[in-house]
């Protein structure tokens, strides 16, 4: 049985079809890539899964629970964590306090603040933010903010993590670091849905890739197979080959 399944998902904003009859399943411990040009509906799909938006049509199921109509905190406590495309730190709290928040409010919460802060320290060492734990989050650089997003998601103890463009704007070296970090996360048995423009990362991490275009799923399969797909090439370039990314 899949860990997560979305069937026939439709999201309308007025007369705009943001997501159009999309099916999506994720097996336990799997890494699935989700790619597509800007405005393809990728972030809307993540919002549907995490309860920030409600689907106009379709069914969402996670580990035997129907997600339709559940508020975001309940979905989070079921074990779905996400990062935001634009980092959403608690700016005036320290890095450590930021990560203590999910530790205090997940399904198996830390018993008290002290324990939550200890949990946070462990997670921060994993993502490499240990030395910056006492800085206010507003003082972090963009790559560090991405690490913080990831640390907060990890501290929720999720079974599925939705990563909304965690690599956008990173240098090639930083992308490599992020990829090895995601492999480490995956090795803990957490399933990942990786939404990326950085195709190198998607191709390197995922066995299965889904391509969205104008809200519709236009291809699904192994990375090599998908990148050779005529419809995908057409969607990205209107030309013959996929862009080679840094």
């Amino acid at each position: 049985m899949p860990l997560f399944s979305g069937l026939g998902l439709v999201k309308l904003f007025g007369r705009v079809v943001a997501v159009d009859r999309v099916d999506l399943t994720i097996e336990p411990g799997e890494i699935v890539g989700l790619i597509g040009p800007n405005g393809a509906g990728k972030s809307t799909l993540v919002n549907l899964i995490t309860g920030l938006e409600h689907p106009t049509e379709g069914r969402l199921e996670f580990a035997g629970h129907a997600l339709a109509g559940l508020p975001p905190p309940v979905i989070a406590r079921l074990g779905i964590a996400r990062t935001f495309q634009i980092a959403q730190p608690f700016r005036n709290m320290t890095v450590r306090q930021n990560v203590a928040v999910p530790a205090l409010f997940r399904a198996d919460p830390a018993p008290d603040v002290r324990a939550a802060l200890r949990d946070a320290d462990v997670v921060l060492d994993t993502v490499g933010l240990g030395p910056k734990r006492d800085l206010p989050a507003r003082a972090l650089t963009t790559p560090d903010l991405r690490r913080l997003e990831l640390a907060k998601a990890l501290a929720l103890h999720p079974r599925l993590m939705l990563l909304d463009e965690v690599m956008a704007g990173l240098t090639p070296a930083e992308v490599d670091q992020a990829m090895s970090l995601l492999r480490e996360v995956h090795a803990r048995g957490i399933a990942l849905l990786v939404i990326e423009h950085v195709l190198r990362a998607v191709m390197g991490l995922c066995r299965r890739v889904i391509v969205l275009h104008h809200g519709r799923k236009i291809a699904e399969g192994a990375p090599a197979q998908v990148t050779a797909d005529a419809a995908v090439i057409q969607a990205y370039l209107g030309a013959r080959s996929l862009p080679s990314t840094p």
Partner: protein
Amino acid sequence: MTAGGGRVWAGAGRAVFAATAVFALIFPLLAGTYYVRLATGIYMFGLLASAWNLIGGYTGYPDFGGAAYLGIGAYTTGILMVRAHTPFGAALGAGCLLAAVVAVLMGSLLLRLRGHYFAIATLGFLLVLQQLAANLDITGGGSGMNLPVASTFTTFYYWMLGALVLAVAAGWALPRVRVGYALAAIRENQDAAQVLGITPLPFKIIAYAGNALLFGAAGGIYAYWFTFIDPPTVFNVDFTIQAVVMTLFGGPGTAAGPVVGAVILKSLDTVLTNRSVFFHNIFFGALVCVLVIFAPRGVAEIARTRGSLLRAVRAELGASRL
């Protein structure tokens, strides 16, 4: 700073704290009635500011209806003492409780709103209660209500001091407990808080009810102190506004900020009022503008991050010219 330095500072802090506590306790024995009254007034505004800080500072919800709960506390205390001959302590307790209960009910509606909408709605609620009090029989309507006269004024000093200590303790404890983390996360970014497992409404209601309970306490003590209450004096938005200004001045989201704000501004206010009533209004209006523009997180924050108010003003003016 070295660990040894930290210990010295913590020790010094504790000594100052203990000295302040002892001084506050024996103050009525040392000072004349005028100064005891003055101190009681300062404590009252310290209490209001600390209460507002729970919802406005820690939670980031700009409440303007705090005086609604001050009125509820005042009228409950008054009605119970006058009509049921309840002792003051019990009447005050009932007033605090009723204020908190009403806050839970109103909060579960109003706290779904954000930003300006919340501010306006709470102000509306205050005006509704003021009209209600002016038109009910049990409150004595527009002609107000007289309370029994206490035997000694010092009573109020200690009641107000006790309530203030409670309020400051709440502000001190909040950032150290689970609820405080929820409130801070909600203040900083409610959407991000939700996807990390926080259901915002119950936590906001806790902060709002705490704020209401303390405003209620201030109202009850105020009513017995002044022995006369009527709708415009207790359901008075000026109480809320002063609490807001003092909190912003001292530093919202800190335990000491609201008290520091109350002590400084109330003392200034007393000095200025003695000189000119008009001038003191102008001063406070201008102060609000300056604070909101240049120091939205309090004077303490400026001192910590940018050096001085003057430099902050210069930086702000320089930036806006670009």
